[in-house]
């Protein structure tokens, strides 16, 4: 079990994050660059001292600012797979894996045997004597994983474990990583800026932005009800924030939307771009939400086109290339927008 409250200032970063993780849980900490993800990891590992807070693993206090406890990194039961893996270039794969055991006082022969069996388990026995420079990205990642696990940690931290790989290798390495992570019983925390990686690996997402936790929950919950522009953009939906009363959502900027969801108070409203209809003239009929705008950008994505519409309520619509021709869409042209009330998901902010 990991219970961490990490609060510190480092340069322009003001980090104050609390993350608890149960044994066996895989938590992905997801956020844009500069959100403080790596600093959080380094703080939990003991590489950066806290200004305030406390880090506890399995009821053992590793750090507590108020109690002036700070265990150095070498005495924490935490394994780290660093970004770029950081395999020691002057040591072989086997010596890299044996390093932690040797540092913990295991005899040389014994450490080699145990390191060898770790490499075996990860299918790397024939690369035991290879220098890191001779390993592929995927192999290096496995050696880094073996090195971190060989010290038998209670918590495993992985910092952007796939970022150093080519796009072509990422899929298979991710599947392998998921399998190997599953065989580790402790807490696993994956730091990433890649939503795909987070969704594929984690039981739970923690969204970090500007040094704060914006949202936490299952991948499904987070993607269905995003609470930040960052996640909305990652998922590709329109996210609006406003005040709701009796199905009427007053959005920042003065516009108003009608929704079928009855939630009152401060709310988020999510509209999928597919649910946004575009018209040359003011549409007749049932849509409750109709407004006028100007197309600002046309973004072709395969068989779909994302159309940015500016106006009193900026929004992104997704249409087919055929619709672009029919509507004679051009950047800067005037256009009508409609969204059915039932297509707007509203939930408390």
């Amino acid at each position: 079990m990991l219970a961490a409250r990490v609060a510190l200032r480092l340069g322009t970063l003001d980090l104050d994050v609390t993350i608890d993780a149960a044994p066996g849980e895989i938590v992905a900490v997801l956020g844009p660059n500069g959100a403080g993800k790596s600093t959080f990891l380094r703080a939990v590992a003991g590489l950066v001292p806290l200004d305030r807070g406390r880090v506890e693993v399995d009821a053992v206090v590793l750090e507590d600012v108020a109690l002036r406890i700070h265990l150095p990194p070498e005495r924490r039961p935490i394994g780290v797979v660093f970004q770029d893996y950081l395999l020691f270039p002057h040591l072989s794969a086997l010596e890299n894996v044996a390093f932690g055991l040797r540092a913990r006082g295991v005899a040389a022969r014994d450490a080699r045997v145990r390191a060898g069996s770790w490499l075996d388990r990860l299918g790397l026995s024939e690369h035991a004597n290879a220098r890191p420079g001779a390993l592929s990205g995927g192999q290096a990642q496995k050696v880094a994983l073996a090195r971190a696990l060989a010290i038998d940690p209670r918590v495993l931290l992985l910092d952007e474990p796939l970022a150093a790989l080519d796009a072509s290798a990422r899929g298979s390495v991710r599947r392998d990583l998921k399998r190997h992570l599953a065989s580790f019983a402790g807490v696993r925390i994956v730091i990433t800026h890649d939503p795909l990686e987070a969704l594929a690996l984690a039981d739970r997402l923690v969204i970090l932005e500007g040094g704060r936790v914006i949202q936490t929950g299952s991948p499904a919950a987070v993607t269905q009800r995003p609470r930040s522009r960052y996640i909305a953009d990652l998922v590709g939906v329109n996210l609006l924030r406003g005040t709701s009363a009796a199905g009427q959502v007053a959005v920042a900027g003065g516009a108003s939307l009608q929704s079928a969801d009855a939630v009152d108070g401060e709310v988020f409203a999510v509209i999928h771009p597919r649910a946004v209809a575009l018209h040359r003239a003011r549409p007749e009929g049932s849509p409750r939400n109709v407004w006028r705008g100007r197309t600002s950008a046309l973004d072709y994505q395969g068989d779909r086109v994302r159309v940015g519409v500016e106006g009193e309520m900026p929004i992104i619509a997704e249409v087919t290339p055929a619709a672009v021709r029919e509507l004679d869409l051009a950047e800067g042209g005037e256009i009508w927008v409609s969204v059915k009330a039932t297509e707007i998901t509203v939930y408390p902010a």
Partner: protein
Amino acid sequence: MRSERPPALFVALAAVGVAFFVLPLVGLVSRASWQTALGDLTSPEALTALRLSLVVSLAATALALLLGVPLAWIYARVPFRGRDVIRALTTLPMILPPVVGGVALLFAFGRRGLVGQALDAMFGIRIPFTTAGAILAATFVAMPFLVLTVESGLRSMDRRYEDAARTLGAGRWLVFRRVTLPLIAPSVFAGAVLCWARALGEFGATITFAGNLPGTTQTLPLAVYIALETRPEVAIMLSLVLLGVSLFILIAMRDRYLRGV
């Protein structure tokens, strides 16, 4: 690199510049009496100087490593007030006239020097005009080369490797020994070689502080200087030995010094 047709004036001046360096070497080689080379090099005074130079330069390099690597580590890793001033002081011997260094050493470690007086009074240790003095003089002028090279190696290494080692359970000393030192080994080696070469060629501080006693403080450069008066053919052969060593080091470290940026 874009190649360009050089102005004639530049070509002429550059050629003079090259000749200025090459002619002395040609002069040295042309005056060497190869028939007696072996005999000159194995003459007692030459052998004594060779042996002494080896001892002095290697001891100076060892001393520089012992004191210089920790010093470089502190310069690279520990910000403290006055660091730049102290670094400047320890770098000074690189550009200080060696004879001034020798005089300064005399006033520190000489019989009436700051420390020398106490050493003499308390332990009966006298450093000037001993081999130990020659070693100190060589270390004084040569150590800055090692310190600066190792410091730049430490600054350019990726410190995240040390973080990785610590999370694996290594304390600071183990990290230094098994991660930092191997990673900066090329810099330590280069620094040691430069330091050794400088120590081998040391003249001014040595003759001032340690004197010119055959077998005790008369190193190769001093022997060359003395032999020039009495046995020029020996002086030439010893000079060629020093030249060969320098050339060898330059070629061995060509990545550092022979390639243009």
